[in-house]
């Protein structure tokens, strides 16, 4: 890839973004991953694939999602002009559905008859169960026992949608273990099963195809901000679990050097405490779940537990394209703590009448630090990538309120 001209041409044919990415999977899965790659390459050249995708995004998901000026937050922070990209208004309440629509269309092209997925917050699980219901396919979702406890409403939603939710009791019982378990299922059911990965991680081609399906976010923002303000934004901010909503927002802007891009990781109880999920801020390169990327790990290369109040950010890795964008310096990565995210959650609810998910509350918490020092004509777009209904129990607990 010619790094001097563009940041948008990755990955190379072996799935590398710089030294990150790749395909680190067991031999049993290799033929399947190569097959998926070939099918995705064919689909992405096929007009009918994209027209079906776009049609479903419009009529089923409800896209385009609005770009909303946030007047009272803007006033409160007293600096930059703040817009929210409202992906929480999508059907199922988060950006996750964009990717699920794309992947289930691929699964159908590949004549697969069974879907599996991993989920942390349950948003990706709900989105997967939803497209499975829509297309009449059986669905199994792996979810860590810890996450099942803190995301009960989503567990019930998945079951209502007809999905089987399999609790994962291995390891730390969170997202990474759910992903291990989904990979184990896939290895055992290679003939009929399609694995819908929920973020820009996993072996090639997943990081690329999930990004391509999520890029609708950034592409819409480009048009909407020009319509509203007559020019491109100055700063984009998004939260990062695996990095799919951020990559979807950032990718269309990577080659606009004047657009500042900031990814916000979960700082948990504080990066200095060791209880956090900030892989880029505090991790180092390693290999997990099929790709090389920054990982939270100990000196012996064992993966550390991640910690975040937000189940959707509670992952010890990050998509490989982010690892590369970090190293080449195109995107800045910062972290905010649980406490800061909670405060932002409450502020957004009180001032804008929007209940954000705890994940984008992290993005807003960073906006709160950034915006006051910026001039009033500075255009800042934050990805409000999920709604907070699923989080009310966790928030109540954190605030010491009994429901």
């Amino acid at each position, binding site marked *: 890839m010619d790094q001097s001209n563009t940041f948008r041409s990755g990955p190379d044919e072996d799935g590398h973004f710089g030294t990150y990415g790749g395909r680190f999977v*067991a031999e049993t899965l290799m033929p399947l991953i190569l097959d998926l790659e070939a099918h995705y390459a064919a689909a992405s050249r096929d007009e009918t694939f994209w027209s079906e995708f776009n049609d479903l995004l419009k009529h089923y998901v409800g896209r385009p999602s609005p770009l909303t000026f946030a007047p009272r937050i803007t006033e409160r922070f007293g600096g930059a002009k703040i817009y929210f990209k409202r992906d929480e208004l999508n059907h199922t309440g988060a950006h996750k559905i964009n990717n699920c629509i794309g992947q289930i269309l691929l699964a159908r092209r590949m004549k697969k008859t069974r879907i599996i997925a991993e989920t942390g917050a349950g948003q990706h699980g709900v989105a997967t169960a939803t497209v499975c219901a829509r297309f009449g396919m059986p669905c199994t979702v792996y979810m860590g026992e810890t996450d099942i406890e803190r995301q009960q409403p989503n567990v019930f939603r998945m079951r209502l949608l007809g999905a089987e939710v399999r609790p994962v009791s291995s390891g730390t019982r969170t997202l990474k273990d759910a992903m291990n378990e989904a990979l184990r299922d896939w290895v*055992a059911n290679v003939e009929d099963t399609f694995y819908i990965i929920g973020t820009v991680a996993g072996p090639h081609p997943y990081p690329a195809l999930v990004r391509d399906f999520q890029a609708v976010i950034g592409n819409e923002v480009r048009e909407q901000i020009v319509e509203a303000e007559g020019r491109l934004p100055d700063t984009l901010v998004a939260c990062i679990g695996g990095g799919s909503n951020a990559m979807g927002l950032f990718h269309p802007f990577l080659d606009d050097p004047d657009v500042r891009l900031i990814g916000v990781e979960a700082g948990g109880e504080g990066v200095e405490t060791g209880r956090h999920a900030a892989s880029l801020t505090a991790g180092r390169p390693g290999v997990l779940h099929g790709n090389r990327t920054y990982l939270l790990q100990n000196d012996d290369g064992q993966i550390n537990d991640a910690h975040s109040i937000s189940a959707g950010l509670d992952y010890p890795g990050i998509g490989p394209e982010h690892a590369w964008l970090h190293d080449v310096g195109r995107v800045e990565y910062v972290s905010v703590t649980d406490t800061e995210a909670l405060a932002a959650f409450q502020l957004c609810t009180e001032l804008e009448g929007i209940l954000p998910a705890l994940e984008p509350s992290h993005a807003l918490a960073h906006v709160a630090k950034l915006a006051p020092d910026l001039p009033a004509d500075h255009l800042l777009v934050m990805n409000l990538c999920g709604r907070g209904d699923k989080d009310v129990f966790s928030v109540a607990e954190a605030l010491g309120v009994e429901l």
Partner: protein
Amino acid sequence: MSNRIDARFRRLAEERRAGLVTFVTAGDPNPAESRRILADLPRAGADVIELGMPFSDPMADGPAIQKSSLRALKAGQTLAGTLAMVAEFRSGDDATPIVLMGYYNPIFSYGVDRFLEDATGAGVDGLIVVDLPPEADSELCVPARACGIDFIRLATPTTDDRRLPSVLRNASGFLYYVSITGITGTRVGESDVVAGALARIRAHTTLPIAVGFGIRSPEQASRIAETADAVVVGSALVSAVEQTPENAAAAVSELVEELKAGVLSARGADRGGRA
């Protein structure tokens, strides 16, 4: 290089019997007992030893080996500790091949060059790294072979004739045929299906073929040993460790002896493995 693996498979071929390959996790249930288990394996009947390098996220393993890895890590096992175990074993046994098996991240974290230097020094003969397919050969396979360490490849039911050549390209030592599509310790392939797969693979390679994943009983070992050059048993052994942690070495030895009897009962002395 010495090549204990080639020597061992040559001897098995001369003796017209299949070998027994035993997998245990280094450091399970604790470092001291694990050293005893390892030291006793050759006497109990192991022809080749696979020693697991525990990893926190063993994606290709079933519950038995997952738990075994976590026990070892909890007891403080590190990759450096595993290499030291091999070196200690080697001071008393210079013939039994040792193959380290695991996942790439601990090795990558240790540093590939340093790892290969230390592994060579300790007397490691081969490596099986589950999440390094042939597409990633430049990571570890090629450098390992340059140091005289065999890189043992896995072939599976999804490895078709088109893909086999790339799997075999840099393979050495022996080939590990995974008898099922699935994780370790769950079930074993039907012996006639396995026999068919081995015949297909042997059209592409002269490497000895070990068959594993899910073989638990002497009877299963015996059936697979009819056609395979070696039989791999892992989950059954680490389950024995789980059940009798305080006396694991004896429990493992006993099971290995039974499995060995199963393997030896497979073929008459006048029949070779390669029909």
